[in-house]
C-alpha cells in the first residue's frame, strides 16, 4: 500500500474537514452557475420591460396613470430594499442584502420603476423638448466609457473606494430626504436642488459623478460573480444593480440638462 494513502484520500491536508475546496468561492454546479451572457441578457430584458412600461405611462398620461406610477415606484423601492438591503456608514447593513430574492423581485422592480420614469420623462420633455433622448444618449455615453475603463483594468475598485462611494451615496440619499421634507413643509423645492444657480449645477455634476462611479461597483459585482462561478440568481442581482444605477444616472443627467437649459 502507498505510504501516502492519507494524502491520496484527502488531498494535501490529512484532515478531511479542511479540504482544498473549503477555500473555494465556486459554489454551484455548472448548470446553476452565473455567466456573463446571462447577466447581459437579464439586463437587456429588464431595460426592455422598463422602457415598455415607461412608454405606456408616457403615452397615456392621466390621474389614474399617475396613481399607477406612484404605486409602481413604491413597489420598486420595497423590492430594491429587500434585495439590496440598507447600509449606513459606521453601522453597516441595517437590512442585509438578499441576492437570492432577486429572481422574484426583478419584474416588480423593472415594471414599477418604468411607470414612474415614463411620467418624469414626459414632464421634462414637455418643458424642454428633446431633452429625454439627449439624457438617454449621455447616460449610455457615460456608462460605456466607465465600462471601458473597468474592463481594461484602469479602474479597480478597492475596499476604501467602495467605502467612500457608499458614504457619498448615503450623503446624497440624506440630501434627497432633506429636500423632500423641505418641499413638503414649504411647498417649494430648495433652490440648490431644483434651481439653476452655479451651486445647484455644481451639486448636480457631483451627483452625476457619484452615480457614474457607482456603475463601476455594478460592473465589478457582475464580473466577479461570473469569474467565481456564483449561483444563477446573481445574474438577476447584477442586472438589477446595474439597471438601478443606470436609472439614477439618467435622472440626474436629465435634471442637469434641464438646469442648463433653464439658465
Amino acid at each position, binding site marked *: 500500500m502507498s505510504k501516502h494513502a492519507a494524502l491520496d484520500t484527502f488531498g494535501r491536508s490529512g484532515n*478531511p*474537514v*479542511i*479540504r482544498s*475546496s*473549503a477555500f*473555494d*468561492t465556486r*459554489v*454551484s454546479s455548472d448548470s446553476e452557475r452565473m455567466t*456573463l451572457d446571462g*447577466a*447581459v441578457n437579464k*439586463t437587456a430584458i429588464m431595460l426592455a420591460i422598463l422602457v415598455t412600461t415607461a412608454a405606456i405611462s408616457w403615452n397615456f398620461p392621466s390621474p389614474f396613470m399617475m396613481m399607477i406610477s406612484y404605486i409602481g415606484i413604491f413597489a420598486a423601492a420595497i423590492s430594491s430594499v429587500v434585495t439590496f438591503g440598507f447600509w449606513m456608514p459606521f453601522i453597516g447593513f441595517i437590512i*442585509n*442584502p*438578499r*441576492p*437570492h430574492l432577486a429572481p422574484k423581485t426583478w419584474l416588480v422592480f423593472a415594471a414599477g420603476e418604468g411607470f414612474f420614469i415614463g411620467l418624469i420623462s414626459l414632464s421634462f*420633455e414637455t418643458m424642454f*423638448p*428633446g*431633452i*429625454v*433622448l*439627449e439624457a*438617454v*444618449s*449621455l447616460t*449610455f*455615453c457615460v*456608462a*460605456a466609457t466607465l*465600462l471601458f475603463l*473597468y*474592463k*481594461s*483594468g484602469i479602474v*479597480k*475598485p*478597492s*475596499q476604501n*473606494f*467602495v467605502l467612500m462611494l457608499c458614504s457619498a451615496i448615503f450623503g446624497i440619499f440624506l440630501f434627497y430626504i432633506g429636500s423632500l421634507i423641505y418641499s413638503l413643509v414649504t411647498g417649494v423645492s430648495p433652490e440648490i436642488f431644483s434651481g439653476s444657480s452655479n451651486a445647484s449645477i455644481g451639486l448636480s455634476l457631483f451627483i452625476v459623478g457619484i452615480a457614474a462611479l457607482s456603475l463601476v*461597483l455594478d*460592473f*465589478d*459585482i*457582475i*464580473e*466577479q*460573480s*461570473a*469569474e467565481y462561478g*456564483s*449561483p*444563477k*440568481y*446573481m445574474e438577476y*442581482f447584477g442586472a438589477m444593480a446595474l439597471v438601478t444605477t443606470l436609472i439614477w444616472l439618467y435622472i440626474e443627467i436629465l435634471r442637469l440638462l434641464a438646469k442648463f437649459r433653464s439658465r
Partner: protein
Amino acid sequence: MLSSNPLILVLGLISFAIFFYLLKIRASKNQIESFKNKNRMNWSWLWLRFGRNKPESNIIEGESIEVNDDEQK
C-alpha cells in the same frame, strides 16, 4: 422628442452598442488578476451568505468502517 442635437443621438446609439458589447466580453487579465489583491473589494460574501446555493459542506459523507488490525494479521 427628436428635436435634440443629432450628434448626441448618434453618439448615444454608438455608446449603446459599445456598452452591450463590452458588457458581454470578459474583463482584461489585469483586472481579473487584481481580484486576488488584499485591498481589492471582494463581493463573494453576497452569494456565500444566503440562499439555497450555500457552499458545499466540507464534511465527507459516508459510513466509517472500523479497521481491526488484529483480524488483518
